[in-house]
């Protein structure tokens, strides 16, 4: 009963916060859009949507599922071009990305996300990249240019939520991008939120979420993108098993 009440409270507060952000975005659109260059305006809108909205989710989630972080200190305060690769267990993973030092993240999404009613509209509005709509080379060039301009890229190479199951196979697109541009890949592991919320349910179950940033992994000389992808996945699987083992024991 307590969990249900906390959930009701969470969705009410987060909903109000979302509405306020939406109003600020609409107002800023009307006032600033005619005067600001579109790139500057887009960065501001992405900051409101991804950073502030994401942080508000985590803030209101705290009574139900506190989040502890590790490894964030090695990223520094100023974002440098890098690609974050995260495991994907739950819907809340997307909001946990706001813990990363960014002011204008790029989001890659697929046709499944573009069909979700509000989220689909949002990702199109922010001109994030639908990898199913564009040829690889086209979206790759666009992402590299945005990364060099100071954005960061967060992606879930499993492509779908794994929930309580094992980590899924990785798609290789983002590793090809990293190889092409020479950017390092920073693996990030999220544990504990398998049921916060579970797939197909809005209910946020109490949990202790851990957000762990691992050291950067760069492509080795002569290494194929496929092998690079498998190597990163191997490191993430190994570390995930260690973390979940620790959680079980604890």
């Amino acid at each position, binding site marked *: 009963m307590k969990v249900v009440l906390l959930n009701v409270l969470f969705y009410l507060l987060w909903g109000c916060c979302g509405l306020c952000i939406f109003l600020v975005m609409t107002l800023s659109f009307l006032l600033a859009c005619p005067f600001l260059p579109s790139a500057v305006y887009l960065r501001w809108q992405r900051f409101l949507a991804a950073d502030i909205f994401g942080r508000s989710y985590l803030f209101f989630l705290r009574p139900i599922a506190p989040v502890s972080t590790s490894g964030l200190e090695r990223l520094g305060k100023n974002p440098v071009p890098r690609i974050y690769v995260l495991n994907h267990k739950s819907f809340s993973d997307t909001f946990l990305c706001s813990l990363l030092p960014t002011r204008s993240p790029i989001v890659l999404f697929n046709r499944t996300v573009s069909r979700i009613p509000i989220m689909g509209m949002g990702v199109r509005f922010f001109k994030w990249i639908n990898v199913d709509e564009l040829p690889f080379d086209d979206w790759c060039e666009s992402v590299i240019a945005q990364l060099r301009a100071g954005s960061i890229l967060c992606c879930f190479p499993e492509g779908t939520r794994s929930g309580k199951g094992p980590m899924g*196979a990785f798609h*290789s*697109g983002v590793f*090809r991008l990293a190889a092409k541009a020479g950017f390092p890949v920073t693996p990030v592991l999220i544990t504990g939120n398998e049921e916060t919320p579970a797939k197909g349910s809005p209910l946020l179950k109490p949990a202790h979420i851990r957000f762990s940033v691992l050291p950067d992994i760069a492509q080795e000389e002569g290494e*194929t993108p*496929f*092998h690079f992808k*498998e190597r990163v*996945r191997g490191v993430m699987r190994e570390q995930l098993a260690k973390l979940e083992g620790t959680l079980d024991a604890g």
Partner: protein
Amino acid sequence: MPADDIVQKVNQVFCDTFELEPARLKPEAKLFDDLGLDSLDAVDLVASLKEECGVDLRQDPRVREIRTMGDVYRLVTEIVSSQK
């Protein structure tokens, strides 16, 4: 080309293109679930098979039915046989 040679050549393509260990290349191994390939890797595979084995799968509709290593061996064997 004998069937064993085709299997060996196809395995070599997988080892060179994806740096996979030969022990994983069994006929029942699923390309996507067991070996971790995806659609972009499949494009590389088709290019490598053309280069190394001389088989052009780009316009072949049967390529969509490939699921396992065994399917790759079978399709390459069929194409090589039809080229004779």
